[in-house]
């Protein structure tokens, strides 16, 4: 078990495995998202109150879930890198940030578009929306901090600390709708027990969520591979790996 993990921590080995896994996740993502979008936009019944307007949920909810999931991943990778001094973990954390920021932006944008007709406003400063906006700035801060420090090791350590401290925001976002009176509704998914959504609508949402997860896996592996190559650019295995293609 431990030797397997240690082996995975070595950049050439990780590079090989990631190269092999990426297309699987990529194709799975494409299939799931295409099927999910078709099902969500054409097959799923309309909502009793919002009619067709509810269908933006098929992008909004998976994006919002992923924005939190990716942050936790990034912070975990950063913590592993900080504690065990594994550079590969830092590379993975760095690869996560722009993807997480994109999903956060997508969640905020789709939410805003939905909110204008449904709530009657583009934006309100309630606890859920504000904490999700803070998440976007955490991602930006993480990326800016990395970019601002030239020395790779120092950039790794400083940004890892920021990522770990920012984890505090994740439970605040998740439970903001339960702890405070917010305009944003409580969670439809991820409640223990029965979800508050009709099964005919829910199945497509779960499909989109799985598709987004696979998409994230494919993109983060690709980005991490590029990051690993960049960091090991003057080592022999990199030349061999690139020539062997």
């Amino acid at each position, binding site marked *: 078990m431990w030797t397997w993990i240690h082996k995975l921590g070595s950049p050439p080995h990780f590079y090989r495995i990631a190269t092999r896994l990426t297309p699987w996740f990529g194709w799975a993502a494409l299939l799931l998202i295409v099927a999910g979008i078709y099902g969500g936009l054409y097959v799923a019944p*309309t*909502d009793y109150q919002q009619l067709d307007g509810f269908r933006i949920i098929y992008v909004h909810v998976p994006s919002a879930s992923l924005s939190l999931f990716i942050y936790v991943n990034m912070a975990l990778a950063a913590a592993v890198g900080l504690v065990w001094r594994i550079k590969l973990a830092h590379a993975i954390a760095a690869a996560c940030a722009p993807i997480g920021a994109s999903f956060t932006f997508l969640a905020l944008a789709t939410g805003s578009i939905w909110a204008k007709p449904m709530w009657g406003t583009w934006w309100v400063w309630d606890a859920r929306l504000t904490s999700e906006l803070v998440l976007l700035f955490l991602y930006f801060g993480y990326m800016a901090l990395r970019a601002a420090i030239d020395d790779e090791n120092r950039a790794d350590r400083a940004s890892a600390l920021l990522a770990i401290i920012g984890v505090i925001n994740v439970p605040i976002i998740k439970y903001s709708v339960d702890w405070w009176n917010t*305009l944003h509704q*409580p969670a439809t998914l991820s409640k223990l027990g029965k979800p508050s959504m*009709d099964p005919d609508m829910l199945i497509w949402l779960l499909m989109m969520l799985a598709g987004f997860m696979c998409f994230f896996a494919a993109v983060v592996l690709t980005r991490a591979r590029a990051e690993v190559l960049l960091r090991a650019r003057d080592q022999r295995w990199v030349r061999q790996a690139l020539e062997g293609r």
Partner: protein
Amino acid sequence: MKARHQRLMAIGLVLVGLGLGTTFLLRAMNENILFYYSPSQVAAGEPPEGRRFRVGGLVVNGSVDRVPGDLEVHFVLTDNAKTVPVVYSGILPDLFREGQGIIAHGEMTQDGSFRADEVLAKHDENYMPPEVEDSLKQVHGGSET
């Protein structure tokens, strides 16, 4: 203790400390994070006097009264305990209807009604097709009679 255990401990302590700090901070600011007050809180005089605030509740069935030829609309908000009458002039959101959760932003007037300049519809977390809602209503109506 190995160096990496020390680092692990340090990260754990930082997170525990930050978590505690944030908890106390948020508890202290609880009043300001509340997006709206319920009609019961309004009746108990909790909202700051002479300041604008938000009140949230359900629109009482049959209370919506539109002034003909004008945008002005009167309705009553309830949390099933207390009620607040609201006056609003403007465009209502799509989801505004009787029985719907609504959040109004404005201030109390002398006569005890709430003068709103913004009305937002609060949506709940339930999603279902119209047929399901109809059958739910029938079951519900059947059990009441």
